[in-house]
């Protein structure tokens, strides 16, 4: 292939990637990220400020609504929009930290399992099987029920119940990378095992990690909100989407907005991660489609 052709090929690839860019997904994610970072500045009210007189005000576009509370207020007169904005913070912090932590655990174990094979592989893969057969939410709930629902505990529990996906994909990737000549050459050249894993194998799995991490972010956010919804996640008065939905549930017959808008927020974020994740997968690593079910 001539040099110009290579350049042109690359150009087409980039153009194709741009054309399929999920602008909706990226926009949604960026908006939430922005809002979460700048919560103190963009939220119209303090999320815990109560105003009983204004309790259960409907959203601004409804009869009885008022434009000072765009999405209405909850049973204690707290501004729903402000609580959703602050809730984004909690969801994204838990999401990002848990994804990074579980990514570390999963990648580490996946690398070991794929590279060393044999007993190490068997043991790790059996642990993966065991974990996959246990309902994650039930395990997480019982651990949190036992150790108490602090933010750290929640993040750690989510991480140790979600690392499996990374381990499986990384292991599969390592197996195919390991078969390459450059790994053998590195061994011959006297590289230490750590160095081979770090400089020769790990770079090959980064693309897959980015893809899984993005898709997992959505799942982790749903997971955290479910824990909070069941009362064993983030604790009040911290505004969390799951808690808001659990509280709103009691008023579902006459204040539909309380159990609707926080859920819309979750759905939008997760939709964003799904769209961006699917796109990244197609651009970075088409082979993953089969591996991630």
């Amino acid at each position, binding site marked *: 292939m001539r040099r110009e052709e290579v350049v042109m090929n690359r150009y087409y690839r980039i153009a194709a990637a741009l054309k399929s860019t999920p602008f909706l997904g990226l926009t949604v994610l960026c908006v939430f990220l922005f809002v979460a970072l700048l919560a103190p500045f963009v939220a119209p009210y303090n999320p815990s400020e109560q105003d009983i007189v204004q309790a259960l005000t409907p959203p601004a576009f409804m009869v009885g609504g008022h434009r000072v509370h765009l999405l209405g207020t909850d049973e204690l007169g707290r501004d729903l929009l402000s609580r959703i904005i602050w809730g984004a913070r909690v969801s994204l912090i838990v999401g990002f930290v848990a994804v990074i932590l579980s990514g570390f655990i999963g990648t580490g174990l996946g690398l070991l399992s794929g590279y060393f094979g044999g007993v190490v592989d068997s043991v790790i893969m*059996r*642990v993966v*099987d*065991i974990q*996959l*057969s*246990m*309902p*994650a*939410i*039930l*395990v997480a*709930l*019982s*651990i949190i*029920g*036992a*150790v108490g629902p602090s933010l750290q505990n929640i993040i750690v529990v989510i991480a140790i119940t979600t690392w499996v996906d990374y381990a499986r994909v990384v292991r599969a990737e390592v197996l195919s990378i390991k078969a390459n000549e450059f790994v053998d050459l590195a061994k011959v050249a006297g590289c230490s095992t750590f160095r081979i894993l770090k400089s020769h194998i790990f770079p090959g799995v980064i693309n897959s990690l980015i893809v899984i991490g993005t898709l997992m972010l*959505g799942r982790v956010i*749903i997971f955290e*909100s*479910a824990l909070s*919804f*069941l*009362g*064993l996640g983030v604790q009040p008065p911290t505004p969390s989407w799951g808690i808001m*939905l659990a509280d*709103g*549930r009691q008023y*579902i*017959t006459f204040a*539909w907005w309380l*159990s*609707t808008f926080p*859920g819309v927020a*979750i*759905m939008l974020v*997760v*939709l964003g991660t*799904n*769209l961006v994740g699917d796109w990244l997968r197609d651009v970075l690593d088409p082979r993953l*489609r089969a591996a991630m*079910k």
Partner: protein
Amino acid sequence: MQPLEDVRHIHSGKLQMKGYFLRRFIQSLIVVLGISVIVFVISHLTGDPTDLLLPPEATEQDRALMREQLGLDRSVVVQFAEFIKNLIRGDFGESFRHQTPALSLVMTAFPATLKLTLAAMLLSIVVAVPVGIVSAVKRGSLYDRLGMVVALLGQSMPVYWAGLMLILLFAVKLGWLPSTGGEGFRSIVLPACTLGMFSTAAIARFTRSSMLDVLEMDYVRTARIKGIPEYLVVLKHALKNASIPVITMTSLQLGRMLAGTVIVETIFSWPGLGRMAVQAIYNRDYPVVQAAVFVASVMFVVINLLVDLLYTYIDPRITYK
């Protein structure tokens, strides 16, 4: 020469299959053992249960006696051995709250969960597979796009929120269906829809992509050239071949659903295993938590084992690794 080799191949295939079944079975046993280890560890994270079992005015002597009764004064290894011994007999101890054996409590709740899961599974398959097929056949049409957008939304929603929205629409606003369980046939509709929502979306997307792969195959083109009616080409030649990955996917969804019952049963007050487990966790009733986690996990292992064995009958090409 050729036929002889074929026979030999089939023969060794059968042997391989036996070995594979055995290996799969042993693997499952190891997984069950691992599950029991985790269940044991979880129950020991709480620390001293005597605070839960005894009134606050109990003396230190009472507590020590209680610990001795529960075997907590012995070493962890001995406790674990005891735990396994009881587990084999199906004895998880008595519920702290109800003073009845934990396993029988859990088993009384199990049929309700099974009913709900099966209803949800049936619903998702009945909805998702046709949607996936039509989307694949009419690829790029408005129908396809709409179907896939709805499926993507369905996959992005938290289960419990979808449940709340269904309650809001069908129970509160329209008043068509009850929002809680135990009121005859109509009461299963909303929980089953909620539980099946994610899987419906996933199976529909998966059926579509699996069908798209198959529809490009040579044998599909050949069938068309032979003049076979299009609906037969799609349903017989394409769907049959596209079904295997869909079945794998569906069986994986079954496990996901079992986990989903934890939340769905809580929202709809459905008297099943999931709700019982959550309430036991709230009450720190650890024998019941142990039994529930164990039963749910073992169910999943059994389902997986059955599905794997089923495959070898559906598709003889599958290799027994």
